[in-house]
């Protein structure tokens, strides 16, 4: 099942002589159970791509589907984002005055789920990301790796089957970064679709497929058959 489908997506910021072509006709699909990594230098369009999939920006031309919905026809994008799409950012954006479990419950409560059920759901994902026992701690009582696990739990809580991760390993050391990818990978293997943006080859290598973005275009991808030249 295809969870994300971009067809010939272009995105232009600004107009006329100062127009910036952030994406120039990108097509990309992510299936359920698939981890796809997008690599590229800054300015290659990778963040724009993630914003388009999350409905935070609209394409200038082309279409973006999440599940069977064309985002251009979705009225309440905020609700779609809350229910279907989870985000993990480099800067964790956990709310400091809420405990780990309260942070994870938040998107469910915003969606009208009763606190008790929201807490149960939150505890399930916290257990899956390996930080169940830290549920009642506040963000500043957690290490960077633990905070990122909580952020991933928040991205996964409820029925969400698509996770958009923008440099989720940020400033973490390589061992902790590997653990974060391990968690994302496990979620993929359990059926979620993950679109990961990173500039670090070691984390991209956890993906089933790596897409190289250059100047707003897909320059190459590891699913293209390779002839070894020796």
């Amino acid at each position: 099942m295809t969870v994300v489908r971009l067809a010939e997506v272009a995105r232009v910021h600004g107009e006329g002589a100062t127009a910036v072509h952030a994406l120039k006709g990108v097509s990309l699909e992510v299936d359920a159970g698939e981890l796809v990594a997008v690599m590229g230098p800054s300015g290659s369009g990778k963040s724009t791509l993630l914003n388009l999939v999350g409905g935070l920006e609209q394409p200038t031309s082309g279409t973006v589907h999440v599940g069977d919905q064309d985002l251009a026809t979705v009225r309440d994008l905020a609700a779609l984002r809350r229910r279907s799409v989870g985000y993990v950012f480099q800067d964790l954006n956990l709310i400091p005055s809420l405990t780990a479990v309260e942070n994870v419950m938040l998107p469910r409560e915003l969606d009208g789920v009763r606190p008790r059920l929201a807490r149960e759901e939150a505890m399930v994902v916290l257990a899956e990301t390996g930080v169940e026992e830290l549920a009642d701690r506040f963000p500043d009582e957690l290490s960077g790796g633990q905070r990122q696990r909580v952020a991933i739990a928040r991205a996964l809580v409820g029925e969400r089957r698509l996770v958009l991760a923008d440099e989720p390993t940020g400033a973490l050391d390589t061992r902790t970064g590997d653990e974060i990818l391990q968690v994302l990978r496990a979620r993929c293997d359990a059926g979620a679709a993950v679109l990961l943006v990173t500039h670090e080859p070691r984390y991209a290598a956890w993906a089933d497929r790596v897409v190289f973005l250059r100047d707003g275009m897909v320059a190459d991808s590891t699913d293209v058959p390779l002839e070894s030249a020796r």
Partner: protein
Amino acid sequence: MSIRHGLLALLSRGPRHGYQLRVEFEASTGATWPLNIGQVYATLSRMERDGLVEPGESDEQGRVAYTLTAAGRAELARWFSTPIVQSDRPRDELVIKLAMAVEAKEVDVAEVIRRQRTATMRALQQLTKAKRAVTGGAARRLVLDSMIFRAEAEQRWLDHCEAVLKEET
């Protein structure tokens, strides 16, 4: 490094016979350095000659277990306390190939880089898969980690080459 030091290190855990040493050597290096049994026995007999190990009685199957001597322990300690010199690493074919691609006429260097980057990423994906499959055995995992760091460095270097060459044109 020599096979000799690897075998000395394994023998520091207790007496071992040749076949056992070979299996343990490959297990801890993640099979990145396959040994044949002949190399193991040849190395053991040279170390016996040099007084680093001594053979015990042969068992009912005719296998001889070797034990570390005091001199063997000293040699092992010396090896661990001396850093490796970075000097005589073999020349890297990729580096030469890319330098030549820049110098040669009618070569699309960007294309050479692009192809290599995708191939290196594939290798990195395979190493990562292998690492995920490792259960227990920190030695093996760390060997794979080392290969991952190296592939990563190559990938970064290729990105760097691309950026530098783009500037020049």
